[in-house]
């Protein structure tokens, strides 16, 4: 069963068409990699899913429920969009951790705020907050950061910051976890630790969408790949199939340019 259905999404910035007729589906427990050159619309697509951008056309369904329909303003009310965003988790290229909070507080803050809306929050406040903190600590140790819980973001390396950001996104148990070039802002020697964590999540069948420039990683970790160029989906299919034996000429060109510039040559 498809957990996510994206249907005919279109997005303009002024006169520029950034996304054109984007449709795809994602199965529960699968990882989808989106590849393509800069400016191909990958990030905008991810931002549309997280309601950071509003598509001009199209629909987004999660578990067969319409979350967004460009033709139906009722699906775009600010108050509801806030709840709908919780279906998706988002890990940003530049981490965007909250600098004034410790790693642990970064992970637990949103959940604490949501818990305040629970009717029993006042009575069980202590137990609820302790539960959230325990979950936060568990997530951080899953990221290999147990002993960094009390550190502030500026005291952590880029790779550690990004792992905190992943824990923060996981804390709200989203249906679909989105990564926007999670390693692009990192020094090469730090990408490995972040990719390893994402690989671990894939092995645990976390439903994910990963915008990435790491081709070998996309091939090995993702189940499906979408190649985008100029705001359209040029090719999509099985990850290994698309990356090793692309059918479309544009995909071939993109991947060969990639091999030339890639030093690792896997």
């Amino acid at each position, binding site marked *: 069963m498809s957990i996510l259905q994206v249907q005919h999404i279109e997005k303009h910035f002024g006169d520029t068409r950034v996304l054109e007729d984007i449709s795809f589906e994602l199965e529960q427990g699968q990882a989808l990699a989106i590849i393509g050159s800069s400016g191909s619309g990958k990030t905008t697509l991810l931002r549309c899913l997280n309601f950071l951008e509003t598509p001009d056309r199209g629909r987004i369904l999660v578990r067969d429920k319409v979350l967004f329909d460009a033709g139906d303003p009722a699906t775009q009310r600010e108050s509801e969009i806030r709840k709908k965003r919780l279906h998706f988790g988002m890990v940003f290229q530049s981490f965007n951790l909250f*600098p004034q909070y410790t790693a642990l507080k970064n992970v637990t803050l949103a959940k604490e705020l949501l818990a305040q809306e629970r009717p029993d929050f006042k009575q069980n406040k202590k137990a609820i907050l302790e539960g959230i903190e325990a979950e936060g600590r568990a997530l951080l140790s899953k990221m290999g950061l147990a002993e960094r819980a009390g550190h502030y973001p500026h005291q952590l390396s880029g790779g550690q910051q990004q792992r905190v950001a992943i824990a923060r996104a996981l804390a709200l148990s989203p249906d679909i976890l989105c990564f926007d070039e999670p390693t692009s802002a990192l020094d090469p020697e730090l990408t490995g630790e972040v990719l390893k964590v994402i690989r671990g999540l894939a092995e645990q069948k976390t439903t994910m969408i990963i915008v990435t420039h790491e081709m070998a990683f996309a091939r090995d970790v993702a189940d499906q790949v979408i190649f985008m160029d100029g705001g359209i989906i040029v090719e999509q299919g099985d990850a290994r199939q698309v990356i090793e034996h692309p059918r479309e000429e544009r995909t071939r060109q993109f991947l060969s340019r990639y091999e030339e510039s890639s030093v690792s040559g896997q």
Partner: protein
Amino acid sequence: MYSFWDVNVAMLEGSVTTLQMFVLTLLFALPLGLIISFGSMSRFSPLRWLTKTFVWIIRGSPLMLQILIVFYGPGLLFGWKALPRFTAALVTFVINYACYFSEIYRGGIQGVPKGQQEAGQVLGMTKSQIFFKVTLLQVVKRIVPPMGNEFITLVKDTSLVRVISVYEIIWVGESFIKKGMIWPLFYCMVFYLLFSGALTLALGWFERKLSYFK
């Protein structure tokens, strides 16, 4: 003749007014400035332009002139009874400083990376949660140095209320000239320096308090 002690007592009395003017101006101008900054960042363009024009007029004209207008204006224009001197001066200071503060707030708010707000949004936070839990402290950290500048300027600007004869430090200093003593006027400077010195220390302490994050 008046003794050194007499001069000090008189000047301390004058300092009370200065201190009141300083504290009350901050008390009202800090929140008012935040409201004005929201106006100048509004997506509703008539409100934005109205606010910007107002800020331009207030920041673009002398504070001393504004004090005179607020104190004498209502009487000259409409024949109304003038506000009490201290109140007139305070109203002027609050409006004037709120406009300066609003620009500092605007710079501070717009200086927080957009990604902070977006991170809050994707975590399901409300607009006010994002403002109070995510943005505000980062804004405060950013605005402490420019605000400190304004606070110190305010200490000295309080002397402008002299133009409508509000009893404060300079007024006291001048009053001794009529009694044949020159040095108390220069001695006023010590009070301003003590005041701004204490303020500088307090601001430095506050800045260090916020240095635990970057």
